[in-house]
């Protein structure tokens, strides 16, 4: 006599029928797995995407820059300047420094930059800049020359203006040696900047020699402070930042504080680790809740469907046929939950990246593995209920 069988195709159709006979409950059971897998995919995707953004934003320009701040002046109630006159020269001696310059915003209280005396002034930022600043900041000239040591040491009333400021001041050419008035003081425009990638305010403002600014308006006002921008070789920024305050003010390096750009690899690792440890824990909890949900629902289904189990046994099903059917149902629940969760996770990643104008980065292996992980969770969650179902005695099952 041939043995009783449960063909794979029959198992599939019976499994689907089992799930669809209570679609609402099946859908609710999926939720835990959907949330867990969805959170997992979203977290990994966002983590990868965020790391990618960090990589993009912390580019070589940022990685070769050190900002030294006059922290002593920032905390002082009096206008003061803790950078010595030869600060840039001292900084340039540090190994790994390409160029440096001191700057601060000149303490003008009113909008006083104009191209004609007596006319209403424009509210343009006026920057006091040491000779090396514009070189260190990577400023590119549209025409003319940059501020230099000559202008500085001779305290010449000259100015270099940004292209936007030039347009506002109606200066299109240096051919006629145009002049502007800052706080009523005349300045000859010697250069027009095309762009300055590091100091944004130079693009739409005016730069004048440090010595002139000090002479006319004194040091930075109380509560503000001068800064030094140091352009370093790639990889030297951290070391330069550590050495700069001592090199510039060996008598009292605490007056200065230097900030190097964050270490890219370290930052990425930190961000990834923080995100992963926090959100993956949440995803893990969701997955456990999902697994418990599947196990619970499957166990309830086993108890509710005892009569069906008894009937199937009477019709020739072996205990393993019963167990496999319930195991298939729980696995399918996990698999479907994983599929939906992976889809929602991808949508979440895309939503966040579109919102932030980022580039989405998501390892396709994660997306493919997510439904499988869901299936494995469903499989594990279904083991106990399946064992219970297969161990059910047919007579007892039929009696329920």
């Amino acid at each position, binding site marked *: *006599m*041939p*043995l*009783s*069988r*449960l*063909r794979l*195709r*029959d198992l599939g159709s*019976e499994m689907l*029928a089992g799930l*669809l*006979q209570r679609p609402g409950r099946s859908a609710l059971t999926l939720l835990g797995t959907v949330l867990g897998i969805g959170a997992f995919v979203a977290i990994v995707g966002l983590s990868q995407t965020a790391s990618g953004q960090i990589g993009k934003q912390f580019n070589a320009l940022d990685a070769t820059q050190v900002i030294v701040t006059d922290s002593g002046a920032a905390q002082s109630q009096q206008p003061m300047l803790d950078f010595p006159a030869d600060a840039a020269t001292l900084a340039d001696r540090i190994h790994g420094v390409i160029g440096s310059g001191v700057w601060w915003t000149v303490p003008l209280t009113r909008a006083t930059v104009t191209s004609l005396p007596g006319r209403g002034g424009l509210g343009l930022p006026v920057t006091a800049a040491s000779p090396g600043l514009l070189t260190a900041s990577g400023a590119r000239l549209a025409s003319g020359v940059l501020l230099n040591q000559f202008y500085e040491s001779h305290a010449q009333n000259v100015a270099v203006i940004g292209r936007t400021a030039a347009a506002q001041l109606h200066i299109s050419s240096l051919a006629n040696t145009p002049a502007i008035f800052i706080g009523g003081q005349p300045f000859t425009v010697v250069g027009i900047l095309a762009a300055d990638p590091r100091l944004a305010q130079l693009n739409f403002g005016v730069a004048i020699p440090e010595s002139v600014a000090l002479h006319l308006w004194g040091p930075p006002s109380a509560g503000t402070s001068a800064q030094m921008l140091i352009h370093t070789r790639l990889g030297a920024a951290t070391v330069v930042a550590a050495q700069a305050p001592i090199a510039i003010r060996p008598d009292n390096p605490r007056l200065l504080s230097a900030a190097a750009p964050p270490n890219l690899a370290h930052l990425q690792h930190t961000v990834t680790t923080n995100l992963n440890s926090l959100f993956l824990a949440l995803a893990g909890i969701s997955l456990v809740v999902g697994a418990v949900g599947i196990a619970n629902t499957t166990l309830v289904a086993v108890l509710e469907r005892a*009569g*069906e189990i*008894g*009937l*199937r*046994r*009477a*019709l*020739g*099903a*072996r*205990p393993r*046929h019963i167990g496999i059917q319930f195991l298939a149902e729980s696995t399918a629940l996990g698999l479907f939950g994983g599929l939906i969760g992976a889809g929602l996770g991808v949508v979440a990643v895309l939503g966040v990246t579109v919102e932030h104008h980022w580039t989405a980065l998501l390892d396709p292996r994660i997306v493919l593995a997510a439904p499988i992980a869901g299936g494995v969770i469903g499989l594990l969650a279904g083991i106990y209920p399946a064992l219970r179902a297969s161990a059910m*005695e*047919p*007579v007892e099952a*039929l009696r329920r």
Partner: protein
Amino acid sequence: MTVTAAGEPVIRLSGVGYTYPGPPPVRALLPMNLVIFRGEHVAVMGPSGSGKSTLLNLVGLLDRPTAGRIEINGTDMGAASERTRAAVRAHEIGFVFQAFHLLPHRTAVENVMLAQIYADIPRHRRREEAMAALAHVGLAKRAHALPTALSGGERQRVAIARALVNSPSLLLCDEPTGNLDSGTTGEIADLLAALHEAGATLLVITHNPAVAGRAARRIAIRDGRLVDRVDRGPGPEGGQGAFVT
């Protein structure tokens, strides 16, 4: 105590007894001998708790006796593995239950087809054979109705079609009219009698004298023992007898 009839035996019980383990242990069936022959229509009667359903469960291989030997078509089933017993249930035995045991989310024909899965009937034959079984019990037109849309009698007809669809050598009916009104009871009794006329071997557990009256042989159980020969109809080989010893 032995009840026998002449001919080729489908079921042979030799000293079969059953004791529920308890505690305390309850002797549901005292050791008994019973032979049912191919083509017989046997009714088992008795009060509630007398052991009728226990006897049917043992004969249907849904449970194992605690004493004695059960043969089906000459094979000892008491010592057989579960896979063998499952195979016999799938191919040789059809069950009809008092509570119908139809799956509520499946149509009549799908309920009938459920029995074909474990008997490994090829898929392409299933629907056709299930429809034929439904037609045999007069329900071809209700094949696509859900059980909730069927009357009690119709549900039991679906259950009978499911029991018949694999052409088993034995049909076991446990109170098949227990949930039906008197009119429908008559219809089901007629249907079972017709199946017997067509050659089926039936063992029917029933309280109902009208249903039992349609059986050629009636035996009684009381307090777990075969107590009497209730009646003796003509046996399959011309009436040699069922008797009690």
